[in-house]
């Protein structure tokens, strides 16, 4: 088992730059997620790690070893595909055995490890079935078993949950994380689902247009986004353009905001961002960071109520508790705590 390092990796498709100088260090046993919209380069990056395509420039290292010219079948990675990519003409047991057979593992050892893998993913009794006779969830488990049974140096996931229904997705997500921790295998995980990324990862890499936008632990990334793209892509965000007016003050078309003390602002245009759940109906008499907003929509979401607000033509979102009794058309004051406002690029 080894860590994974990407050094200024670049990959073009014709005139399009899919991956544009990605630098990333993944520690041994760490689970790192590449998160971003489609076309951001996350899958291309993953496929380069697997060896299905070569970088145009830059290096891919497993531990200290440069892997650029190593063909995929010699890399000892194991990938779980979005489509599962099971071998349709083989049984479950044969599918799981495939990687061991290719590695010429002795038959007895193969049997033992296949049995273990089957138990790990709870597929006992289905060994003789073919993929076509399994449900989506079961196929997913076979794909997972087939990957881990080879004891890979690096485990790769390409949107492994996107073909499962919502309930199962959450369950399998937990199982994958638990299994990955237990095996301690270095893992690169690709998804476009921010909830999944936050829930499963040690660190999340947000990618946009072939570049890394920000890297961080899930909570840090959520609480301290550096760019409006990250703020907006991870969860929901209210993003307002304004002008710095002093060290901790930003003037915007919808009012003046005092922002957290951790960063000194110069002057000139800035953007500020805060989460819908950080907006509160203002207590009477409050003065700081107050936004007078017209309620345009009230949406009951179970554990909270989502408000669509209009402030001087700018649309904002707020999440308030379900005790909220306002109605559409109401004009209300909302407060945004200054320590929850982030200045973003």
């Amino acid at each position, binding site marked *: 088992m080894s860590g994974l390092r990407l050094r200024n990796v670049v990959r073009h498709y014709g005139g399009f730059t899919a991956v544009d100088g990605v630098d990333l260090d993944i520690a041994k046993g760490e689970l790192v997620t590449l998160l971003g919209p489609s076309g951001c380069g996350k899958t291309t990056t993953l496929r380069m790690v*697997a060896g299905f395509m070569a970088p145009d420039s830059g290096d891919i290292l497993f531990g200290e070893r440069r892997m650029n010219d190593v063909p995929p*079948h010699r890399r000892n990675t*194991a*990938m779980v595909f979005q489509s599962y990519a*099971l071998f*349709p003409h083989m049984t479950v047991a044969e599918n799981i055995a495939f990687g061991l057979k290719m590695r010429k593992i002795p038959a007895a050892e193969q049997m033992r490890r296949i049995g273990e893998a089957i138990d790990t993913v709870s597929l006992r009794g289905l060994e003789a079935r073919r993929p076509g006779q399994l449900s989506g969830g079961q196929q997913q488990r076979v794909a997972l078993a087939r990957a881990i049974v080879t004891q890979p140096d690096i485990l790769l996931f390409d949107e492994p949950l996107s073909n499962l229904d919502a309930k199962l997705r959450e369950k399998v997500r937990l199982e994958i994380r638990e299994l990955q921790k237990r095996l301690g295998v270095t893992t690169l995980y690709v998804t476009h689902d921010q909830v999944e990324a936050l829930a499963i990862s040690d660190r999340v890499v947000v990618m946009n247009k072939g570049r890394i936008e920000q890297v961080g632990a899930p909570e840090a990334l959520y609480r301290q986004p550096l760019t409006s793209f990250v703020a907006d892509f991870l969860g929901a965000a209210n993003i307002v353009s304004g002008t710095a007016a002093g060290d901790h003050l930003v003037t915007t078309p919808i009012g003046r905001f005092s922002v957290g003390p951790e960063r000194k602002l110069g002057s000139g245009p800035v953007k500020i961002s805060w989460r819908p759940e950080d907006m509160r109906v203002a207590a009477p008499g409050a003065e700081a960071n107050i936004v007078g907003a017209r309620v345009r929509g009230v949406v009951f979401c179970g554990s909270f109520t989502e408000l669509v607000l209009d402030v001087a033509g700018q649309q904002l979102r707020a999440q308030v508790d379900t005790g909220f009794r306002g109605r559409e058309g109401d004009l209300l004051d909302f407060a945004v705590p200054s320590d929850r406002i982030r200045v973003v690029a």
Partner: protein
Amino acid sequence: MTDMALAIPPPHIRRRIGLKGFLVGLSVALLLVWTAVPLFMAVMWSLVNPDDPWSPPAVLPPSFSLAQWEYVFTFSEIGKAIVTSFVLAPVVTILSFILSLPTAYAIGRLSFRGKEALRLLILLPIVLPAMVIAMFLSRTFYAFGLAQTFLGLVLGHTLLSMPYMLRILATAFEAIPQDVIDAARNLGAGRLELVRHILVPMVLPGLMAGSVFTFITSLEEFNLTFVIGTPTFQTIPTVLFDYLGYHFVRTNAAVVSIVLMVPSIALLLIAERYLKTEYLSSAFGKL
């Protein structure tokens, strides 16, 4: 909702069921007229007793005998023709497979300019009238001394039947998801292992189906065989033609028809089985 309302479907659903039933019924009826009736009539005619003729308005022959079968097998070249046909067809099938393999792989798995045009071009021998091909190809065959030779028949049949092999094999290659190939490589399969454990087993059903179509096409080929093969070589269809042309004898023709039809139908059922293989069935929609 009351039980009554549940029991009687609303009018638009009733109409759809009615239409569907009608269409299914019509299809079955057409198929019967199309295939079962000719086959049935062929069997009846082949069993007519020459001493007890079958004539209208009798629906069935008054008595049955194997006299027609004896006659045809004694006095025609059908025996030799069966041997020729059933030697020719496997040779043509194998040659078609060998010649198709690289092209089918290229069309199925690689991307290149003019691929769609090539895909259509392949079908040309099927689309052109066989007689037209036969007439003009025969000149070439005579020029190269291939006429009246077994090799000439093999080459001619291969030309006419290979499109089926090529098309089906290409589709079989195309039906393999790239992910499955990537997964195999990812799990440690080198080039040879990929071919052996993934490509070959996964195109095998397509290969079987393509072989059956190629085999049947060769078996039933008449035009080219007639022009470049006879009289040196007789195949089952050319023997049949003898009975349909100058010496028209329906009872004898019926015997030869059955000899021709039964293996074809049996092979078609086999092909149907292979085409049903689950991971191919989706891909064969676009055949």
